[in-house]
């Protein structure tokens, strides 16, 4: 598991991809952050909320190659015939993508630090928001991993996960206008609306459980999907 994770992390950071993604993400945050500095406002929590939205664009690119590439290159054989379980392989891949995400998250702490340097406060609410962000990242990446397992074409994998994440986001915005039972269900399902509970300052047991179990179930389904493919294809 760690071997696979280590290799993938190495692969991310030995190619320009991780740097481009991190740079892009930081650029986006900075663009939102600058006007706040100019207005002497230190509320990073709302930017943290937006960062959840940025992830929709970052995660598909981050995860597109994670399993699809192995299938295309034939390295899948190497992994599958090594004395490691498939679940550990998938988990290792997930950990690798998550590590890049963690690096992004850690670098983003620079903004709250700047706020503190200029006599602002680091609130518990922001800490809670970050916890939510970490959980949201996990859930998003698991979707990316599943998409990457479903095809050997990286571009298609990226498109699948992007569409899936976008649907999640649209579902959240739609839920309020649809209303009723459908709206409630959409809100219940939507990762974004679960995340917004964190950013608005509530640490909810149900939200933590939802995001963690969502990640777990998607990774489990990824394993099942690969097993199923091994069964039906050559």
């Amino acid at each position, binding site marked *: 598991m760690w071997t696979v994770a280590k290799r993938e992390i190495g692969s991310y950071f030995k190619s320009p991809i991780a740097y481009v993604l991190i740079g892009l993400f930081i650029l986006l945050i900075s663009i939102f952050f600058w006007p706040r500095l100019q207005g*002497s406002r*230190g509320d990073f929590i709302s930017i943290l909320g937006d960062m959840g939205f940025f992830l929709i664009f970052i995660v598909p690119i981050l995860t597109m190659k994670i399993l699809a590439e192995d299938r295309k290159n034939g390295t899948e054989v190497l992994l599958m015939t090594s004395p490691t379980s498939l679940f550990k392989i998938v988990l290792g891949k997930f950990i690798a993508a998550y590590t890049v995400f963690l690096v992004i998250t850690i670098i983003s702490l620079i903004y709250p630090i700047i706020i503190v340097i200029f006599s*602002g406060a680091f609130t518990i609410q922001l800490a809670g928001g970050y916890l939510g962000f970490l959980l949201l990242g996990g859930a998003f990446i698991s979707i990316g991993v599943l998409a990457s397992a479903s095809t050997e074409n990286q571009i298609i994998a990226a498109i699948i996960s992007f569409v899936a994440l976008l649907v999640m986001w649209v579902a959240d915005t739609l839920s309020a*206008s649809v209303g009723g039972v459908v709206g409630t269900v959409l809100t219940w399902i939507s990762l974004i609306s679960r995340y917004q509970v964190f950013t*608005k300052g*509530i*640490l909810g047991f149900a939200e933590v459980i939802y995001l963690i*179990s969502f990640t777990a179930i998607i990774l489990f389904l990824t394993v*099942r999907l690969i097993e199923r493919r091994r069964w039906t294809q050559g």
Partner: protein
Amino acid sequence: MTEKNTNYDVKKIERSRKLKYGSNAIIVMISSIVVFVMINLIASWITFEVDLTPEGLYSIGDQTKSILENLTKEVTVYGLFDETKIADDNSYSKIIDLLKKYNAYDNVKVEYVNPNTNVEFMNNLDPDNVLGMTTNNFVVVCGDYKKVLKYYDFFESYASDYNTFGVVDVGSKAELSLTSAINYVSRDERTTILFSNGHDEFTDDYDYIAVSEKFTLNGFKIGRINLYNESIPDEADIIVIANPTSDLYPEEVKKLKEFMAAGNSVYVLMDCMITNDRFTNLQSFLYDYNVQLGYDKIKEYDTDFYLEGNQYYIFPELIRSDVNEPIYENFTKLMAPNARSINILRILNNNLSIQPLLITSEKTKLEGIYDDIKDFSGAAYVAVAVTDSTTNAKLLLSGTASFMQDQILINYSQYDAGATKFMLNNLNWLEGETSEMFIEQKDFFVNSIIITTKQANTVGGFLVYGLPSLILLAGLIVYLRRRHL
């Protein structure tokens, strides 16, 4: 290996194969999703939530809790909108979240009714349309009592842009409003406060508008009375005489004495006013309770006790007493502009118990406002509470009236909380009930930073141009170095 073992092995293999790959694989997937949904349904029933906001936006205070716990009647809070259509970034979503806390109590029910689709409900609730309910209001109902809460009851707002009518919420009054409304509708008896208005006093329609709204929110009934030509109605519990500009007539004093003798309460508030009138009739009424208004103006010399730049805008200290006990902890400053001292007379009267409430610093100077009044130096009382044990009547005499005047609360809003707290505590004591309400407005936390424009542009510029470039550069170096390996 024996035959039996081999058979067992083959069966085991077959089973694992089926489970992993065969038709059972679909069942495994579906059941895992079912487990996932079950786990989360259970988790959503466990309403364990921690409020992380600095303002405590989603928490209810001890007072709300005790009021909700002690409810004997069922109270229903109706939100007049479809709560499933409230987006997360809508202000109302904060109230919905807060109401979940209320809903957890046995006697509180929270329901959302869309008035557009359920006209009948609206007609039943308010057949004569006296409540003025509209969509997006809340209605708190207990039996026949109803109270409507509107947006401005929940949020403290200011107009951010007069051209576009943009409004920015700066604080939440939601807990205060909701708890007050619940308390209000569920009360068995309503305490009635009458503002005396024959002598240009501060009343609920002039100078005390804001504070009167808070009285109402706290479940008091508000009215006005001209003591000279009106008789005091039976339902009156407290009469407030705030800053009269002329002395009371003897008839009025007589009515007040009768009112007090019946076990009711009077609240007299008087700023220092330079008039020719010495208010002898009022003083004679106060004399019965061993207290007198001082003919002076308090000037503070201790810098901790007055507003910077104005030694007449003083910060008297709260004295620990039975009356003040509920607010003594966590009390913020009370600002009393143009206050006068209150004297306690040394006449033996075992029926009276006198508790001073506010005191100035040792460095105070009391400036006499009449020629025959000498200046005096030293600590002075600014407010005193008196109880008559024979009649159970209560008198509260305050040497400041403008501490909660509208103009002062607007100009010195940072002292609003202290003034309101002190005032409500006084009323609650006068009312003689123990369930006091001191729910403060929750001002939205503003994480302001101290930064110059130059600094902001330097740091911001680095973050936008410098940092991403550095990261990309690192990527480029790694790429170039590995390309030709």
